[in-house]
């Protein structure tokens, strides 16, 4: 109960403080809120906590994580997009930050937010997805899988974390690059998507490596290929799609730090510097190691390029999916 009280107190304090605007004081002089737009226990949350802890140490200023969840992350992202750009409200976003506004466009909706409402600070991690099939399935290599899919368009099925979700987009990028058509069975989250393939209700799944590794080791699933620009460290024998001749099939579940657009340049500079020091902290490295998530740190121009390239691929992917009903 003590912890609960503390957490609740921290949330209240963190949410109310930005209202007391302070113009002239040096940054940071009051607690910083890091918004994770997904529930506790998800990738965003699990990355945000060690980032916040390490930044707190570097900045010598409290950094609290607040989970503002809902609508596949749109609620939290919209919250930060419209927050005061003073460097006290930051966002830890995943790849979906580029997907959601595109999906809104597809449906002619007023977008909840747009990508240019954010100022990128740094990329923290990027985990390529890998393609897994059940161990008893006939495909031994990605090549066999793709060739079979070409012969039987729309017959091989895969599960995903949800329509336009990260795991769906990974598969769409592959379908696009390889010119194949697969059958999509969306599930309500990455957990149920994994259950669906383990139970034999679908044939394939694109997933973050850490989640499926135990099942590959136990002999239930087989990894065919990865979406990264290099092979996954834990699976050195599994090739990348790039090696196989599909360079457009590149996809990462990445986590990056953003501030609202309009945050003063000195504040952004300070935050960049702090993030760089934070990811070098041994505690941070240990925490990410346990999650089996590789730290990939990019800043400034480098992050912008990565972000732009990723957003371009994803936007094309979303447009290719289009409205699902319209296709039939």
């Amino acid at each position: 109960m003590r912890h609960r009280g503390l957490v609740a107190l921290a949330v209240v304090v963190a949410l109310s403080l930005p209202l007391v605007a302070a113009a002239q004081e040096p940054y940071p002089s009051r607690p910083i809120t890091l918004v994770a737009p997904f529930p506790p226990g998800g990738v965003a949350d699990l990355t945000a906590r060690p980032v916040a802890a390490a930044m707190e140490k570097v900045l010598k200023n409290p950094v609290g994580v607040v989970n503002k969840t809902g609508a596949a992350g749109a609620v939290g992202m919209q919250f930060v997009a419209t927050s005061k750009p003073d460097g006290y409200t930051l966002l830890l976003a995943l790849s979906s930050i580029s997907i959601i506004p595109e999906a809104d466009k597809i449906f002619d909706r007023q977008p909840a937010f747009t990508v240019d409402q954010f100022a990128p600070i740094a990329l923290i991690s990027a985990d390529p997805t890998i393609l897994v099939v059940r161990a008893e399935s006939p495909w031994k290599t990605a090549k066999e899988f793709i060739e079979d899919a070409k012969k039987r368009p729309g017959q091989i099925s895969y599960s995903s974390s949800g329509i336009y979700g990260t795991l769906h987009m990974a598969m769409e990028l592959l379908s696009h690059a390889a010119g194949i058509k697969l059958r999509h069975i969306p599930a309500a989250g990455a957990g149920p998507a994994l259950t669906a393939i383990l139970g034999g209700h679908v044939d394939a799944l694109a997933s973050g490596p850490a989640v499926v590794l135990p099942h590959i080791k136990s002999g239930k699933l087989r990894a065919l290929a990865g979406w990264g620009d290099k092979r996954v460290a834990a699976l050195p024998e599994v090739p990348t799609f790039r090696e196989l001749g599909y360079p457009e099939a590149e996809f990462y579940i990445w986590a990056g730090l953003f501030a609202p657009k309009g945050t003063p340049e000195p504040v952004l500079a300070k935050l960049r510097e702090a993030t760089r020091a934070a990811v070098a902290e041994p505690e941070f490295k240990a925490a990410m190691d346990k999650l089996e998530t590789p730290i990939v740190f990019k800043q400034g121009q480098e992050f912008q390029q990565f972000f732009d390239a990723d957003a371009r691929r994803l936007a094309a992917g979303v447009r290719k999916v289009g409205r699902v009903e319209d296709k039939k």
Partner: protein
Amino acid sequence: MLETLSNLGLGFSVALSPPILMYAFVGCLVGTLVGVLPGVGPLAGISLLLPATFGLDATRAIVMLAGIYYGAMYGGSTTSILMRIPGEAASVMTCIDGYAMARKGRAGAALAIAAVGSYIAGTASVVGLMLLAPPLADFALRFGPPEHLALLLLGLLVLAYMSSGSMLKSLAMAAFGLLLGMVGIDQMSGYFRFAYGVVELGDGLGVVPVAVGLFGVAEILATAGQPTAPKVIKPRLRELLPSRQEWRESIAPIGRGTVLGFLVGILPGSAHIISSFVSYAVEKRVSRHPEQFGHGAVAGVAGPESANNAATSGAMVPMLALGVPSGPIPAVMLAAMMVHGVSPGPLLIQQQPALFWGFIASMYVGNVVLLVLNLPLVGLFVNILRVPYPYLYPAILVFSILGVYAVNGSVVDVWIMLLMGVLGWVLRKLDFETAPIVLGVVLAPLIELSMRQSLAMSDGSYMIFLTRPIAVVLLAVGAVLVLMNLYTFLGRRLDWRARLAMAEKGEEAP
């Protein structure tokens, strides 16, 4: 068997070590509080506490989080029985007969039965978890979308037993609930349905705000609307414990609730909520006095409260044996393991025997702790009823709003709760029952998703439901139940429902 015993010995040596014991106790205590507070359920409690466990080792973290989960099932019945406010969503059914018992001055008995039922269910289902986890987990995986749909349709038949009044009215309420369940992002196409530009509505109407509004807020409004405040029920000490008769009536429902809850719990979805609905229906079906349901039937408390507790252990089966979550709460617990570098999966039991068996043993210990904690609290909680309504109800309203807000930190949820409260009050005035609405809201998204997933799997062919053995069996059971009811109806034989309606009108049943 011998190996299991020696493993369990290892488990108890872990579970009874002072630090683990302490974290189990803290978890149970927090769980009870989370359960008692209206609106705040185990998911919110576990989510809020998850960051605090990052500094602990994996076994301590998981023992504490599990304690919150099953502890909340103990606490959830308290406000349901005393004030008709579900402490968490799985206690909705307890509101009906538990509260009716309280109005008759049997609040203490209802609370005691709920606690003892929870204890028996909790302990027995841990035995099930310990002995049957790997085979059951494999069976659970075979439940794909078509099997799920068949099971959920069976769940809809539960409706027939949920109301004690007009069948037409309860069907109308269920249909309304199913419609409410349509709000939110369409999982298959990404459309925002009925969201009217409110991003928060993308996730649909939550079960918690709907249940707390329809039951709790509506009850408060109804009480406030009476010309004279209802008399405060002053409980007497000797009335705290259940009578011999009440014990006898609760034994069988506890047993059935345990088995049922455990089995439903293994399957993915909001198992602990559905298990309590199904248990209530089963009890009413097998009861020799179905007319007592809704008016303080002991079985209506004992069954569902046991079922929701057994379901929590059931939900651990796929999590521990396979490393896959069967719902949002096990998902958070899996994350807690990953934070500590324990990769959940099929190899967990071999690789981390101390964690697995320590966890199992801690659940035995935790259930004892909860019983010891809850039985003396019965006396304390019952005394809440002594507080005059003008003070009690505003306080409860404040707690409900705080609780519902705390779940997602969303003001939209608070508005949903308040609107549902007004709606629930109107419906009560018009003599509609509101429990079917909650059932509809719980089931609609699950039914829709599993149906559309099934059809996506089969490329639109409905034959998929008739070619998979488990689905066929479940659908056949459903069909038989419908036919049985139809037979009664066509044979013009009046069932208890009609007899009851006539008795209320002062007529003799023919």
